[in-house]
């Protein structure tokens, strides 16, 4: 099998090269050819006897003259003039040509004469590229007496020539078909030579030879006869009139090469018309070179000499014009060539395409690897322009935070249910299942808590994103876990948020414990992560009978705390509500006890959010939130929020710190397929050409042109929540969570001016701002300015900005 392969490849290569040489897929060449053609046509038209020639003719001629415009023009003019003359006085032409033309002999048949065999003659000659001087030598040969050859032809040779002739006949037929468009009669004269050699004249010589060899090879002769019979009709059908190429005898001594070229020109129609003429020339030559004797004898016949006519002369001229060497395109190629030229330039691209395909194949073999490379064509969109064009609703991401069991998930479940993002059927199903395990009140939370562990334990573990739309805004909810163990997950969620909804439990005791716990920590975290606006949902108001005083107390405490945390009072708003009942979420509470509240509902409050701007024109940055298998179609998918920049389908991305590249196979924005995505959007990228081991949540996606640097140590300006000293800390940035240590306390800083108060403090007290150096064991992608959170022992010790 492999042998087959090898062979095939070899042939293919040959073909390919041939194509290269003659089909001129090279666009430059093509262009040059065009220019030449134009020039020639121009000159022809401008010349003395203005003549016209078809582009094909011109190009053919150009090809033969190696793009020599002058010669081509001469030749074409001569030819056309001749044509014209011929049309007017065809009779006159004949004698003229005959007399005046020192037609170069047909080379091949000659060497076969008595003197020496073809093999002898070509002994020291390369098979291809017969040198010019050789050609002339060949031309000399005809002077030798021919008649002696008659009997000299070996039987076998004759037979072979017949075969060759048969083949030639077939080809000729084909050629004629191809040439049918061209009404030039004489063109067909050429094959006549070969045909004649086997057919008409063969009648006698063959029988003669038969007679000579009868004793040895009667059978062979029979076959000969069969062949002859076969070929005869074909030949006669095509051109019975064409006689033998005997004229050699009448030829004057060999003309020098340039001469014939000039002389040919006038009578050179056939050559011009179609490359099919080439076919005839080449095969016959080929055959005759091998078995020169076959044609020899026929030529020698005086009758043929007599029958010499214009056509024959033309044949010779033609033969000479055809460079008689095998450097010329092979017959098959010529046919192909002819066909392609006949079709015109349309076919050229096809040829070049084929060549290209082959190149691709070769390249493909080189690139072949076990891994299957996927290529996705980029649409090369101007993403920012597309973004500006698109008319989207304003979108907002918000994170829901608060102490554990404040009712965050339930509140969001209620919001989604009331907004119709969740259908009643699903909700009923949840309710039924939740009641089954004795957690009926958690049914709404199950909308967000999809994990089996979360449902069984009734606590949110990881962030959940969901979306719903109002008339004005498309919201994305990020429901964060309240449990202190899952603060890292909450940090990941908060890093995706534009603003926050802080849910506090208004029931007695719960609010107080929450304020000490994650209510406080979460609020500080979202603030230190850059969130400006916060909506406080005072939840479970139904459990305190919508007590106004309770609400006011909570409002007071929380707003005092939030103000110290750095939220501006105008960015803080309070909504008393009940998640389980749905009061003041999307609709006003029907409870008469809550009538004192006339402010906005939670949904209305959400809609007051202003659109947020994102760094669209910055280099691409996206922290991977999750790596998962998106399905059979998308074996590797990542999700996250674009922090900066934009991307589109087909983009090459770089993931850090692994430094691996991947291809974006497709993009989903908020669950909808899209061609592109910009900063601020929650996306799912389906990747290709990367191994999932290189992808971890917390890694950063960027572009190879603007990669994010990985660091093992950084300086940060942080606000201390706890005492800071050189200590081990966990560094958080979005999903990124790595162990590290504060290696140096550089200085404690003034909160407002940022000036160093004390260099190298021994310890940094809570509430002060300090500049610290953090070392990390492994290199992580971090770049200034980015917001980081430092935690130790399960508590947040500091948060700040990377410098």
């Amino acid at each position, binding site marked *: 099998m492999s042998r087959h392969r090898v062979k095939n490849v070899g042939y293919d290569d040959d073909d390919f090269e041939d194509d290269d040489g003659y089909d001129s897929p090279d666009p430059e060449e093509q262009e040059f050819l065009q220019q030449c053609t134009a020039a020639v046509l121009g000159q022809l038209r401008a010349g003395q006897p203005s003549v016209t020639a078809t582009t094909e003719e011109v190009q053919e001629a150009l090809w033969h003259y190696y793009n020599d415009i002058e010669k081509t023009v001469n030749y074409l003019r001569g030819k056309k003039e001749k044509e014209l003359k011929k049309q007017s006085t065809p009779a006159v032409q004949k004698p003229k040509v005959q007399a005046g033309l020192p037609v170069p002999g047909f080379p091949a048949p000659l060497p076969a004469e008595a003197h020496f065999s073809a093999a002898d003659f070509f002994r020291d000659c390369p098979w291809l590229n017969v040198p010019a001087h050789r050609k002339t030598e060949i031309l000399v040969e005809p002077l030798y007496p021919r008649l002696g050859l008659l009997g000299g032809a070996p039987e076998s040779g004759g037979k072979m020539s017949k075969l060759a002739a048969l083949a030639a006949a077939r080809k000729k037929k084909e050629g004629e078909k191809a040439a049918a468009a061209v009404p030039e009669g004489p063109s067909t004269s050429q094959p006549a030579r070969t045909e004649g050699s086997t057919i008409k004249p063969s009648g006698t010589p063959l029988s003669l030879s038969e007679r000579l060899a009868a004793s040895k090879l009667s059978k062979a002769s029979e076959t000969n006869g069969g062949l002859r019979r076969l070929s005869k009709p074909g030949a006669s059908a095509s051109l019975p009139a064409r006689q033998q190429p005997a004229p050699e005898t009448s030829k004057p001594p060999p003309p020098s090469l340039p001469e014939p070229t000039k002389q040919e020109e006038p009578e050179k129609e056939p050559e011009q018309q179609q490359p099919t003429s080439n076919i005839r020339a080449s095969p016959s030559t080929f055959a005759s070179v091998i078995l020169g004797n076959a044609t020899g004898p026929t030529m020698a016949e005086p009758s043929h000499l007599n029958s010499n006519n214009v056509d024959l002369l033309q044949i010779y001229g033609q033969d000479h014009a055809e460079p008689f060497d095998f450097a010329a395109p092979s017959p098959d190629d010529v046919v192909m060539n002819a066909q392609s030229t006949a079709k015109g330039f349309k076919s050229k691209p096809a040829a070049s395409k084929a060549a290209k395909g082959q190149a691709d194949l070769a390249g493909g073999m080189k690139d072949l690897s076990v891994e299957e490379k996927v290529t996705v064509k980029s649409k090369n969109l101007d993403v920012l322009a597309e973004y500006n064009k698109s008319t989207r609703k304003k979108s907002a991401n918000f994170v829901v935070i608060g102490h554990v069991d404040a009712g965050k998930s339930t509140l969001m479940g209620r919001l989604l249910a009331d907004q119709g993002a969740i259908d009643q059927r699903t909700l009923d199903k949840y309710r039924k299942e939740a009641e089954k395990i004795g957690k009926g009140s958690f049914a709404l939370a199950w909308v967000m808590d999809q994990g089996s562990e979360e449902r069984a334990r009734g606590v949110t573990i990881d962030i959940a994103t969901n979306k719903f739309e109002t008339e004005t805004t498309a919201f994305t909810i990020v429901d964060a876990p309240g449990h202190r163990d*899952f603060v890292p997950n909450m940090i990941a969620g908060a890093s995706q948020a534009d603003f926050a909804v802080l849910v506090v439990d208004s029931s007695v005791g719960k609010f107080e414990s929450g304020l000490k716990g994650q209510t406080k920590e979460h609020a500080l975290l979202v603030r230190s992560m850059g969130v400006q606006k916060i909506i406080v949902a005072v939840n479970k108001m139904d459990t305190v009978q919508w007590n106004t005083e309770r609400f006011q107390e909570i409002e007071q405490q929380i707003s005092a705390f939030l103000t110290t945390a750095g939220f501006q009072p105008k960015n803080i708003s309070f909504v008393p509500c009940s998640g389980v009942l749905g009061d003041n979420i999307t609709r006003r509470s029907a409870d008469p006890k809550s009538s004192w509240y006339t402010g906005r509902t939670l949904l209305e409050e959400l809609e007051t959010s202003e659109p947020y701007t994102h760094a669209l024109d910055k280099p691409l940055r996206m922290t991977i939130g999750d790596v998962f298998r998106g399905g059979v179609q998308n074996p590797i998918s990542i999700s996250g929020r674009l922090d900066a920049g934009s991307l589109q389908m087909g983009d090459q991305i770089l993931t850090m710190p692994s430094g691996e590249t991947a291809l974006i196979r497709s993009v989903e924005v908020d669950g909808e397929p899209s061609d592109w995505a910009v900063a601020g959007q929650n996306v799912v990228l389906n990747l290709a050409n990367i191994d999932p081991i290189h992808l971890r949540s917390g890694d950063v996606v960027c572009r190879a042109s603007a990669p994010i640097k990985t660091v093992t140590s950084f300086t940060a300006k942080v606000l201390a929540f706890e005492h800071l*000293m050189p*200590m081990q800390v966990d560094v958080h940035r979005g999903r990124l969570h790595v162990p590290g*240590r504060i290696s140096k306390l550089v200085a404690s800083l003034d909160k407002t001016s940022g000036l160093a108060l004390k260099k190298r403090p021994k310890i940094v007290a809570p509430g002060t701002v300090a500049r610290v150096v953090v070392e990390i064991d492994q290199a992580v992608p971090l770049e200034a300015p980015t917001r980081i959170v430092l935690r130790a022992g399960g508590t947040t010790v500091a948060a700040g900005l990377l410098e």
Partner: protein
Amino acid sequence: MRLIKNTIEHNGSGAVTLCPEEPEDMWHAYNLIRPGDLLRASAIRRVTTVQDTGSTSSARVHLNLLIKVKSLDFDPQSSQLHVSGQITNETAHTKIGQFHTLDLELNRNFTLEKDVGADGEGVGWDSVAVEQLKDAVDEGGKRRAEAVAVVMQEGLAHICFIGQFQTILKQKVEMSVPRKRQGGGDHDKGMGKFFRVTLETLLRQMDFNTSLTSGANNEAVRPVLLASPGFVASGFHKYIQSEAATTTPGLKRLLPSIVVVHSASGYLNSLSEVLQSPAVKTLLADTKYARETKLMDDFLYQLRKETNKATYGPREVESAVDQGAVGRGGGVLIMSNRLFRSQDVAERKRWVSLVDRVRDVEGGEVRVLSSDHESGKRLEGLGGIAALLTFPVVEEDLDSEDDSADAD
């Protein structure tokens, strides 16, 4: 480690013969042996002899070599100690001055000789070295208490062995577990896979034989601490239980020794919280590392509460000692044993003299923490040395601190 023979002179020179019995003894040997010491141990050396005819033959010969230590190489993962130096005794196969690297082996005696030197240029058996020797020699063999801790979080598990003097991270299991998604069951599947890999790794590291019929059944199983934030550890515990109940009954032997505790994260720096948890404390009683961890916590508490009554960093502690703040009545000098491992003789002498001064002159307490424990790592972060002071020491002026910063 067993002490075979002790010939330490009063002036600090002399030799001891020791027999390491368990992997952790290599760590002790690593702390005892210093460059410049003489070490005698059995060795296998390939000796190549050249005949007169020029032909060579090589043979492996057992030798008892005495080398002058040049450098040490300790691999904590496999507890292997390689000591290289120049041979100082002549044998039939080696010449004096040739280099050799001794690989200390378990249950093979070695003799360590330290010399003070005529002019006291050597260190000899100083107080710290003697203390370390005492620590190293485990007379009753009762110090075997050891625990395996698996500190984990979603997709990440650190399997480490907690010894008396070392906490060795044996293996880290890291796996990308898909997060919970809308309608995706990948998370549970991923967690199942994560648990499976972690259990396999744990059993492999523990050399735990899960077949019921094996003779190792009677062997005591070390306590296994499963620690994580949230429910990962308990989920893992449940997974082991279900495995024991279904596929691998051999695991049932492991179940009684499993303790599930809480940790703040899946990284090793939350190990202190694990060791502090009541469940672990009762399990491991009064072990050295538990004491060390407590000491560090006390120090950090003091530092937070009364900043001036605690200090850290080489310069600060030295100056506090100079002021007499580390003395009777609560002064504690806490040092990492890394400082004594210094290649520089002067450096070691500096710390040894500080230790001697606090203990003997000032009357304070000196605690040398193992740098290979979690508490020692915390101490390392503070510069390897810290002190609880008897009275508040006012901080020095900024200039000198800047100097120390530069010195760092």
